[in-house]
């Protein structure tokens, strides 16, 4: 993982949504669309597969589609890889909503611009973890600095998360554990790859 980003531990995430609320509080987004969302996979607990949760916000990709496509150059990528959206250059054309294959940028009808997670760049600059990471009660959501070494088992893609557009998102997933879920996960990975 070359740029700054997130590691989601699928074993430890219980889908509580604390990260979503912490992001709202930190960024003053009480009533707007949340920048982060927690997506369950197989919440009905079908025995044919594992159950886990994907907490996703912005992946600060190495090749960000939002940045490449933006007609007014409202996106900028820092040296550490954080992709920042400058609201004052945004036309509200919503092209980035189309180009991003992850559903990250969110348009606000009231403000007429889009917005997205900026990895709490201000907090990073003060040596603090992003608000979502700090709030995670099971320590499932982690911040990975640029070039950070991560566990050998951490994957760039898991069933439910894909990079269809070559954006090289800076998110990694530690696989779920537990004697029962490990087997289900391995079978699902195989089925999805086929």
């Amino acid at each position, binding site marked *: 993982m070359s740029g700054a980003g997130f590691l989601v531990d699928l074993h430890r995430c219980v889908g509580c949504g604390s990260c979503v609320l912490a992001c709202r509080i930190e960024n003053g987004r009480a009533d707007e669309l949340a920048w982060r969302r927690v997506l369950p996979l197989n919440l009905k607990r079908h025995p*044919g597969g594992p159950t886990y949760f994907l907490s996703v916000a912005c992946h600060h990709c190495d090749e960000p589609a939002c940045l490449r*496509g933006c007609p007014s150059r409202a996106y900028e990528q820092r040296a550490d890889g954080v992709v920042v959206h400058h609201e004052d250059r945004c036309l509200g054309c*919503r092209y980035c909503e189309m180009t991003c*294959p992850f559903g990250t940028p969110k348009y606000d009808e009231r403000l007429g611009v889009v917005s997205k997670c900026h990895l709490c760049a201000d907090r990073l600059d003060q040596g603090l973890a992003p608000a979502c990471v700090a709030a995670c009660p099971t320590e499932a959501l982690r911040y990975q600095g640029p070039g950070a070494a991560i566990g050998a088992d951490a994957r760039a893609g898991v069933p439910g998360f894909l990079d269809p557009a070559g954006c090289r998102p800076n998110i990694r997933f530690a696989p779920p554990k537990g004697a029962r879920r490990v087997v289900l996960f391995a079978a699902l990975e195989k089925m999805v790859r086929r």
Partner: protein
Amino acid sequence: MSQSSGNMPLVWFTSLAIGGAGVIASSAWRAPSDLSSEAVGLAIGTIALGAGILVSLSHLGRKSRAPLAVGGVGRSALSHEIVLAGATLAAALALLAMYWQGAFSAWPRIAAAATATLFLLSIGRVYHLGGQRTWRGATVLIPLTAGLVCGEVFLQAIGNASIREDSLAYWIVPIDALVFTVRWWTLARDTPPLVAPRVDGSRLHNLSAARLLIFDAVPLVLLDMHVAGPAIVAVALGLALDRWLFYALADQHTTEAEIARVEAMIERGSRIG
């Protein structure tokens, strides 16, 4: 991508832009012979393209910042499209002014035609996105072929000429029909099944057949019968249908969609196993 109701401004904008630029291109590519037709084409095309640009402005969240949209030239396909839209409009107006003054030099005419043609291509490029499974491949060419079909049919209709008298129209309609059919066939073949919210299975086939009929077949027949007005109406309706179908087939990749796909696999896999 926003829900379908938010697509309507895009459908209007791209229909007007493609139709207008197509008419401009067709008008400019012809060495002026039937001047009144070509001038009318340039004028109507300019109005249509201008209206399309206004509609696209209305779609912006911050309209006053529209001029910033040229900032992405060199990187953003959307910037290129916007710049080419403006250039096409300007070139068409300049050409009209020249014709009005009786100047018919070739290079400005060809430059205008090329600009309009490049603009049509650039529209296709804007929607060629990694996260949009159903917008790839042949579909990139359709704004170009459909625009030229509009242009040729329009000029034939107002010039009251039959189809065989102009070789470009003779080819461009079948080419457009072929390109569209290739796209239709690719979509139908794709597995897993489409998850586009408003168009699936038989609806895709019905609407695609309707588009071919209304846009490619009917105008040719009407032109052959020298029924000009309805031919233009048919091609306009057909274009709008083509654009509506294009946006309705949007299959934006999101993580939510990917998860739904995997969950469906889990349930199917368990039924078999």
